[in-house]
């Protein structure tokens, strides 16, 4: 590449980075302002002094404590459930021959195209019959059956790349199928397990329609629905509202940076990466 082209490429990359990052800067800046400075025009980018007390103020205005714990509980349960059950299912699909396997596998892939609205109402009726409205069961239980087609697919693709000789060697040493899954496949699959775990956790943290349909009492809400409620009550206090949004955003950013190394690799393994 010629130096001019290189400079041009950097200019575009940096320009785009600014465009993508500016909403974050704007949010953080607003969240640290005094109420009267929020509505100054043109806006002031660096608030001085920074009003850090907006965060505890937003946090305690509504029961964010409780909401964060609820969301963590739901998300962690789903993540563990999806990884354990999904990896078992992926093990079944990737290592065994049995009647109906291919039909099942393609049916599973086809469910990815099904809009969730088709199953939403009857599923709601089931949970209502079971008296589980306003509990976490409707949010957690469905994740315990493999954690969704995409997750199973990702893990199966990864398992296929692990040489079968490992399984066979373990079997000669007297290991059963469960042991092979636990002692051989799972430890060798860290990138894909991390990816599935992060994707599931992100998905649950982000989920809005589920909690909106199933949860009612204020103390049972998750952060996403709670933030919506916060917006209704404090919609004009933009500084507090932005602080509350950051409470919702920050854990995801931290999680992303912790898992980034594995995570990007894992998405690449989705089977499309190498084609």
């Amino acid at each position, binding site marked *: 590449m010629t130096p001019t082209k290189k400079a041009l490429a950097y200019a575009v990359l940096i320009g785009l980075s600014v465009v993508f990052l500016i909403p974050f800067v704007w949010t953080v800046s607003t969240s640290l302002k005094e109420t009267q400075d929020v509505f100054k025009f043109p806006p002031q980018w660096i608030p001085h002094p920074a009003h850090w007390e907006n965060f505890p103020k937003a946090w305690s205005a509504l029961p964010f404590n409780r909401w964060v714990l609820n969301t963590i509980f739901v998300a962690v349960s789903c993540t563990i459930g999806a990884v354990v059950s999904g990896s078992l299912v992926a093990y079944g699909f990737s290592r065994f021959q049995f009647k109906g396997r291919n039909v099942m596998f393609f049916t599973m892939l086809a469910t990815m195209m099904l809009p969730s609205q088709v199953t939403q109402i009857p599923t709601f009726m089931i949970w209502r019959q079971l008296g589980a409205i306003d509990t976490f069961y409707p949010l957690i239980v469905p994740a315990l059956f493999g954690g969704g087609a995409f997750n199973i697919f990702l893990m199966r693709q990864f398992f296929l790349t692990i040489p079968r000789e490992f399984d066979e060697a373990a079997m000669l040493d007297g290991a059963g199928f469960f042991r092979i899954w636990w002692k051989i496949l799972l430890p060798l699959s860290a990138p894909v397990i991390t990816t599935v775990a992060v994707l599931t956790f992100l998905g649950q943290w982000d989920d809005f329609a589920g909690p909106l349909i199933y949860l009612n009492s204020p103390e049972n809400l998750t952060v996403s629905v709670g933030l919506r409620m916060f*917006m209704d009550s404090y919609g004009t206090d933009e500084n507090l509202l932005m602080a509350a949004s950051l409470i919702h955003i920050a854990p995801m950013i931290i999680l992303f940076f912790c898992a980034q190394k594995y995570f990007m690799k894992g998405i690449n393994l989705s089977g499309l990466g190498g084609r």
Partner: protein
Amino acid sequence: MKTRRRLIDRPAFWGFLFTTPWLIGFLVFTAGPMLTSLYLSFTKYDLNTMQFVGTKNYHKLLFDDPIFLKSLRVTVTYALFAVPLGVTGSLGLALLLNLKLRGQRFFRTFFYLPAIVPSVASAVLWMWIFNSDYGLLNYALGIFGIGGVEWLSDEKYALSAIILMSLWGIGGSRMIIFLAGLQGISDTYYEAARLDGASVWQQFRYVTVPQLSPVIFFNVILGVIGSFQVFNSVYVMTNGGPNNATLTYALNLFRNAFEYFKFGKASAMAWILFVILLVITGIQFWTSKRWVHYEGEARS
């Protein structure tokens, strides 16, 4: 003669056993509800009384429900803009990130970050950006001497605002999948093209696009399916308004089900949505034969 082995000694039994969690979940949470919802779509049902009404729900929706048709129009308009812009945008970013330059790791992270922002938080912060008096967008337009508009409360601009906001997330998994696809294209193709004197544009047109076409196809299909299900952003930002300008299909369906308790009608809407998506996806598969290039085919 082979001796009959006990069930527990057969690998096939274990294979099936391991996949049963998915099978049970599929029967209870997918297949069963699908059939139930198909039946419900022929009824009038409000959680208390159920009455079979035949095809009345479908008939009314398609021929005598201006709100439904409006929501369909809004969603198609959204898809017609958000999918092409989103797919070309994320491909563009991937092409930039695929240039051999230092520091790409950082740019990739910067582009990706918006995609992990939870959708409700994203909606809340974009409402503030779109604020007509103190928002960032009108301020930025003002710097270039362009007068601001009422992004979310003017019928003419509200849907554009929602589309614009969706583009903030083009650096997400879609871009990563493109990037992986680009990195999977062998350099030998480009070398051959350069030997033949191909320009950068010709290399893109005759090497990158055909080689990447399965990935483009995949992203377009998922993009269309996703754009027919936009819900969180419009529920939070505009609640479908002003004057139903942002009433998406999914929001209208949700309202009928969980606000008006018209479960029969909402089920019919869900099945119409499903059929629409099946038809669109079918058409895409059918036309894909002309432009999607698979490695195996070329060799044979």
